[in-house]
């Protein structure tokens, strides 16, 4: 190995270490703005999935599409509850509709999040049966969890 090759590899290794370090840092303590941006994107993903369900269920539903949207909500809902650490409320200075009540009434908020996942799982099950009436009823149940949680924990714009 030539001297220059060793130097190049060392530089590469250092750069990789630095990147890995940076990544580790981001996982360990993401900034409030990153967390807020992530949960906002997740909520939009769930909103889009809900809208897709609404569209499917207003006609003859396509089982595969209903299942896909239901799984998106169930999977995203599971992550969402962890994206509200202390310090990511309105006092963080980052624009968010999350109300301080989330942190002062944490147990109720966590219960709402759990309910979302439970109802979304039931929607996946309903989609698997292919029964349109069951899907419609469970879609309403999931939508109800959005609304009731938002009423208490989201700023009305």
């Amino acid at each position, binding site marked *: 190995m030539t001297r220059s090759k060793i130097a190049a590899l060392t530089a590469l290794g250092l750069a990789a270490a630095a990147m890995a370090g940076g990544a580790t840092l981001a996982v360990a303590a993401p900034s409030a703005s990153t967390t807020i941006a992530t949960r906002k994107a997740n909520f*939009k993903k*769930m*909103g*889009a*999935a*809900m*809208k*897709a*369900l*609404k*569209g499917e269920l*207003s*006609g003859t539903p396509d089982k595969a599409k209903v299942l896909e949207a239901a799984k998106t909500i169930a999977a995203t809902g599971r992550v969402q509850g962890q994206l509200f650490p202390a310090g990511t409320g309105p006092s963080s200075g980052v624009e968010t509709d999350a109300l301080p009540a989330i942190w002062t009434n944490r147990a109720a908020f966590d219960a709402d999040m759990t309910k979302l996942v439970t109802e979304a799982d039931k929607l996946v099950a309903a989609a698997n049966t292919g029964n349109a009436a069951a899907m419609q009823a469970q879609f309403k149940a999931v*939508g109800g969890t*959005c*609304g009731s949680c*938002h*009423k208490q924990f*989201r700023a009305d*714009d």
Partner: protein
Amino acid sequence: MSEAATASTRIWDPAIRLFHWLLVGFVGFSWWTGEQHDMEWHRYSGYAILALLVFRLFWGFTGPRTARFGQFVKGPGAVSAYAKTLGSKSAHAADGHNPLGGWSVIAMLGALLVMVVAGLFAIDVDGFDGGPLSDYITFDQGRAFAEFHETVFNVILTLVALHIVAIAFYAVWKRQRLVPAMITGKRKLEAGETAQDLRWSPVLALIGLAIGVAIAWAASTGFRF
């Protein structure tokens, strides 16, 4: 006010008066249900407003003289000439909308129509509840319509406020009471005036209403028949 006039003349036909007060009621109801997030009744209220607006557009071509756009939509010359007489204490001579008020009517009808159409496409933040046409667009587009729907409401509130201020101005400054005329359809004749006819066809009014209801119903189904 001059000496008590005994005779009266008709200004507003029953259909336009009914349109006016139903519109007031449904706009108020839409506001209330919107604030309460009662989207089911909010949608019904919006369909009713759509039917009323379609009727009004139809009536603007087929109704009696005071209802016709051709009679009250005036050019900038007439508007500015009329605006210059606003300071005068004498009341407007002609019946129906004055050249300035005519544009206020157009602005209100236009804003309400934009409002209803935006509402048809709007989707709520949960992607759960929305207008019947929101199925044709993406979630982000539906959200943009919903936000626009809220913005237009502020425009409508401003126009309604202006409308009420104008009515108060006529009542206080010109001593002309406009609200009773919109309820009874009549105003007292001034000395030396002769009563004017107000011809309108109940059949045409029903046709206009039927067209309005048909369009609102079609929109409510998302044009899926």
